[in-house]
């Protein structure tokens, strides 16, 4: 456990030396402020301009889901970038044969950042939310958002062999958060084409105001994490 904590703290030190990754840490707060203050302002302007009762406010739930996805996605993206840099420099291979080991490495680079992402989301979501989310919904969105973040980090680490490829894979893998829009814009049963994405069930849960969709969301996310984790453990030699 000592080695895992040291490894995680070392990652924070490493991030401090990388301005791009350090800046990415501020993304959740910046995104939250943009959602909280700019989106309602745009809505007000649009209502005045169009004369309609509501233009984007029916989709405020979707903004909350995106915010719940952003913090974990950014935290896990940072972790994945650190992992890729360590891979490029052969450092990961060395860390596996220290007291840290392969499992300790994965815990310090994926699991602990994900826990931080969960706590950060659970704290920031009540501050920046646009809808009246219940405490249960906040916990659910933070949890599924975190699972999604882990999936993004694992996808980046599994599909890229260096930091440059990682940037490209980040853009592609981030698309998985857009599954949340399917229940809002695609009618049933066609929207279920996206049911393999945890974000789809997040969208479904908020759109239908039902927490029962937490079950398939966690199930789908859990399965994907297990598959990706196995792939990564095999490739990390």
């Amino acid at each position, binding site marked *: 456990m000592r080695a895992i904590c040291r490894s995680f703290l070392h990652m924070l030190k490493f991030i401090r030396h990388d301005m791009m990754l350090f800046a990415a840490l501020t993304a959740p707060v910046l995104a939250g402020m943009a959602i909280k203050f700019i989106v309602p302002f745009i809505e007000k302007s649009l209502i005045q301009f169009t004369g309609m009762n509501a233009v984007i406010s029916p989709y405020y739930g979707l903004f909350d889901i995106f915010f719940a996805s952003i913090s974990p996605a950014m935290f896990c993206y940072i972790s994945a970038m650190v992992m890729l840099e360590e891979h490029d420099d052969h*450092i990961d291979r060395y860390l596996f044969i220290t007291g840290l080991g392969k499992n*300790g490495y994965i815990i310090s680079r994926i699991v602990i950042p994900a826990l931080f992402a969960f706590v950060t989301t659970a704290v920031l979501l009540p501050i920046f939310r646009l809808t009246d989310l219940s405490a249960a919904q906040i916990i659910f969105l933070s949890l599924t958002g975190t699972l999604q973040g882990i999936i993004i980090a694992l996808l980046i680490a599994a599909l890229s062999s260096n930091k440059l490829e990682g940037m490209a894979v980040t853009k592609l893998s981030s698309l998985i958060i857009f599954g949340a829009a399917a229940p809002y814009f695609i009618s049933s049963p066609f929207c279920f084409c996206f049911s393999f994405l945890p974000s789809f069930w997040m969208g479904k849960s908020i759109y239908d105001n039902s927490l029962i969709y937490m079950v398939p969301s966690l199930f789908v996310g859990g399965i994907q994490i297990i598959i990706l984790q196995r792939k990564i453990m095999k490739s990390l030699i």
Partner: protein
Amino acid sequence: MIKVNNLTFSYTKKSFIRDLSFSVFEGEIFGFLGPSGAGKSTLQKILLGMLPGYQGSAIVNGTECREHKSDFYESIGVDFEFSTMYDKLSAKENLLFFSSLYGRKSRSVDELLRMVGLENDTDKRVSDYSKGMKSRLNFIKALVHDPKLLFLDEPTSGLDPTNSRLMKDIILEEKKRGKTILLTTHNMQDAAELCDRVAFIVGGQIFALDSPHNLIMSKGAAKVSYTWNDNGEQTASCPLDRLSEDKLLNKLIAENRLLSIHSSEPTLNDIFIEITGRTLV
């Protein structure tokens, strides 16, 4: 310290390492010599527990490598051929971080840096280090937790003769401190100088295993070459163990007409080529 029995491993359907058996005793320097692709790195990975899918047995410090737990690495230090340092951090920061990953009491980082002549560059970023400095830093990283067993992969590669000598002296010093050292190298001179025993490995198989001295002596007797002046410089040679039978040599000695005389043993490299039919490239 290390006991390998009937070890077989393959990346594909074809065996890459075939039926290897050998032991490394406590306190010895054991060298693995072979050309690129011979299976040296794969064997090292197996012994480090990184490739658990092997057949047979590979026991390191009493632990079967495929069943190791995290404390397995507490007593193992590894110096890979390539740098495994954080370029953006200083040498000292790197060493302090890596030493913090072990439960064992660490050796003094300042002392280690002084040992390899890097005491004036401790706070310099590793990215600003030369190749030779990185190589020395990489080497002492393997020593920070004072392991019992050292895996060294080409430890003198890329070093100038002075630093190469320094590194070899440190390796011999670590042996005196009781460490067991597994050395992987292309460099026959290093192997002959450092190793108590060497194994020639080609195509995933061991072709010979003995001390460098025994290997040299078993495969070729030393010769004596001599020159003299007889209407220009003349050269001749004869086996060392038949010197007294060489009438010409005896006559030249009696007449004090020898210009030069020296013995020449085959090198470990010659023996490697003779046994394996391969060069070390």
